[in-house]
Structures are given as C-alpha cells and as structure tokens.
C-alpha cells in the first residue's frame, strides 16, 4: 500500500487516483499508523509553504513523514510537499521546514510571470535518475508554483524559467518533484509508475 498523506490541503484526490492508474495501491490517509505500515509514502501539497507546514504539523503527519524518510522506504514529495522537505522558504521566512534536505526555497526569477502556471520541459542533469527512468530525454510536466528549492546536489532535473529552476530531486529513498506528475498526462503516469515499482521492490 502507498500512503498519500491527507492533512486537509487542496486537491489530494488527483495524486491518489493517478498513483492507482500507475498501478499502485494508493490510499489517502490521515492515520500515522497506516502511513507507518505502508510500503511507500507520498507527501503532496499546494498553497503557501507556511500554511501547508502548519496543517501538516497540526495533523501530526509531519512525524509520519519524517519517520517514513528515516525508515528508508520510498518517499515522494510533490510541489509544496517537496518544498516542505527543505529548511525554509522565502515565501514564509518564519516557517520552519522539515529539513530533510539542506537549503531553502526561493522565489522564481523576476521578469517571468508568477506563478509559473504551464507545462514545461524538464532537462535531466544526472543520467542515473530512477524517478525519471523511461520518461525520455526532455519530458514535459505541468508546473504551478511561484517558489522553488535552490539548485543543490540532490537535483536530478531542472526546467528553464528565467534561468534553471529545480524541477526534481532524488537522494536515496527521497524523491520529489516541483511539478505535478498527477496532472502531467502520460509522462506523469510513467514517473509515478517508477515510484510504484520502487515501492513494490
């Protein structure tokens, strides 16, 4: 079973349904024990960084997320679910991130429209990405965001939006995408399929 953490934020149903379509036994859950028993955990998120973290902590699922990361089981953050894995964000400087990954989340380059609300092409910066396996050299994914993590060592793919912007990261069992694979048609389903396979291994 793949646990999609439900802490009452936005549209989580798409993530659950897309994982199911990709072959996973995905379930929305707000129960930390169910998350602990799962083979993989997905942390979605939309909206503001601080508000998502507040809701996540209020639900107690922050500890479930951290426990999943530490357990070594496949873990995937999506959009603000990715951003929350970092230490902080320019969006809400007071809010403390989960600090699973070093670094901070910064505003997209000025001179471009905010939010980036479009499909964009993703360029792999490492060729050993498990997350992007089989997605082709430059797949298209759907982005909706005004902030993104600073480029760091964990980055496996970037998109161009007034300069290179973090699109996907991968470090050990922790995978994350700034784009929405659950809204990215066949390319997104292929990527989620890679996660489903990792969860089954």
């Amino acid at each position, binding site marked *: 079973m793949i646990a999609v953490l439900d802490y009452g934020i*936005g*549209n989580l*149903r*798409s993530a659950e*349904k*897309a994982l199911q*379509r990709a072959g996973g036994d995905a379930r929305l859950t707000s129960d930390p024990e169910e998350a602990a028993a799962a083979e993989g955990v997905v942390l979605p998120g*939309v*909206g*503001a960084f601080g*508000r998502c973290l507040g809701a996540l902590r209020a639900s107690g699922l922050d500890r479930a997320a951290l426990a999943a990361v530490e357990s070594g089981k496949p873990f995937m953050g999506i959009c*603000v679910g990715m951003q929350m894995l970092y230490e902080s964000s320019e969006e809400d400087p007071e809010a403390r991130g989960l600090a699973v990954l070093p670094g901070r989340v910064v505003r997209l380059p000025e001179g*471009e*429209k*905010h*939010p980036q*609300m*479009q*499909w*964009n*092409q993703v360029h792999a910066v490492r060729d050993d990405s498990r997350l992007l396996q089989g997605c082709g050299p430059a797949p*298209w994914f*759907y982005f*909706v*965001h*005004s902030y993104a993590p600073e480029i760091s060592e964990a980055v496996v793919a970037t*998109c*161009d*939006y007034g300069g290179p912007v973090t699109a996907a990261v991968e470090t050990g069992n922790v995978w994350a995408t700034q784009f*929405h694979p*659950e*809204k*990215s*048609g*066949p*390319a*997104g*389903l292929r990527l989620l399929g890679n996660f489903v396979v990792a969860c089954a291994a």
Partner: protein
Amino acid sequence: MRTVRVIPCLDVDAGRVVKGVQFENLRDAGDPVELASLYADQGADEVVFLDITASSEGRDTMVEVVRETAEQVFIPLTVGGGVRSVDDARALLRAGAEKVGVNSAAVADPALIRRMAEEFGSQCVVVSLDARRVGPQGSGRYEVYTHGGRNPSGIDAVSWARICERLGAGEILLTSMDADGGQAGFDLGLTRLVADACRIPVVASGGVGRLQDLVDGALQGGADAVLAASIFHYGRHTVAEAKAYMAERGVLVRPVE
C-alpha cells in the same frame, strides 16, 4: 520559457455538455467526462468546465462530474460557474479540480478572492472576467459583466484584473462578450490590455473560429493560454491539429505525445 496552453472549454448544464452561443441558445454536445478524456488524449493542456446550471441540485451534479473526471483525466481541470463561497470551492477541489473560477460572487465581494487564496493558495484561484467594450471599436475601454454576461458592473476591466491580482488571484480567464460566439477571433485589443496589466497568467477566451485565431491570441494578444469550445466540440479541428498549427507559426506549445 513560456509555453502557451491550449484549453478546450466545456459548458456543463446539469451534468451534460452544452455550448452557448452568446451564452444563450444551448445545444447538447455530450458527456463531460468522455469529452475531457478525449481532449486529454488529443493533447489538451488543461480542460475547463463551466457550470451553467441554474439550480443548486444541479451544482451537486457538478461535484460528481468533477469526481468522475478526476478518476480518468490526468491533466489540470478548472471548474467555474456558480461558485459563491470558500465552501463551494473546497467541494470542487476535494473532488479533484485543480483550479476554481469565480466571477459574479467575486465582483459582489472581492474579499472572496483573498479568502480563497488564503485557504487554498493563489494557484487554485482563477477569476473569470467577462468584459464588454465601452464605446466604439478601438476605444480601449472595457466594462466587467456578471451573471453570464447579463449584468453590467460599472467596473473597468483592466482595473478589475489588477485588483484581482492584488487580492491573490492566480490567473485571469478573460472572455470578450463582444467576440464570444462570433467565431471571428479573440478581441485582441482587450487581451493585450489585460495581459500587459497583469503579472499573473491570462487565458484568452471568446471568439475562436479558426486555428489562426489561437496563434493571434498568443502572439498579438500576449495570452498565456488560449481557450476555445465549438472549434473543438463539433470536430472541426482536434487539439493536436491546433497545436501543430500553432507550433508551425512560432508559438511554443507542448507537443502532443
């Protein structure tokens, strides 16, 4: 890199797709879930459902339509029409909508935009702006209309777009009431005015009759996305044809897989 989105729009009345010509004279054109799925397969970047149902029972039907669509269609789905409150928006988002559009209720109570943005994030909040030209063609002045284009609000369209952005809207869905249903192309003057006035994306809507209109909306109008209905619904062109045509004429679009 700016990629222009191509968005088929489905007008939905009590769970069935209809296309309004000038928002009246409705014709039945099918099942929204099937159509959305078909458009996704054709390479649509997003689908818009516009709920034109008058009754409140009908709106519960819409939540059900969204729920079914989200099980089969894995591209962004925007739902507008009849959204009056944060709770209305929440029901649609929980059912699987990516974005929710507000129009009349936001004009009546602009703070609704802020409440929705605070609750769900700006990326979920689309303001549908229906505008009609004031004075002769080329006057450069446009007025916001509400209630499906029936009621003049007295508000200047460009000022309203800026206010919406300040209140936290994530996108403007801009419909020219003069061009809508006429199939003679977008009102490019209106599109350009609003696109230049906003830092959030602007979707051009109303008037597409030929594929060249989509190109003009992007290149001359400066729209971030182009929305059309009948050109796709009646099988005149597929979304894939539209994107190939746009790409050949220098508009960057996501190629169809």
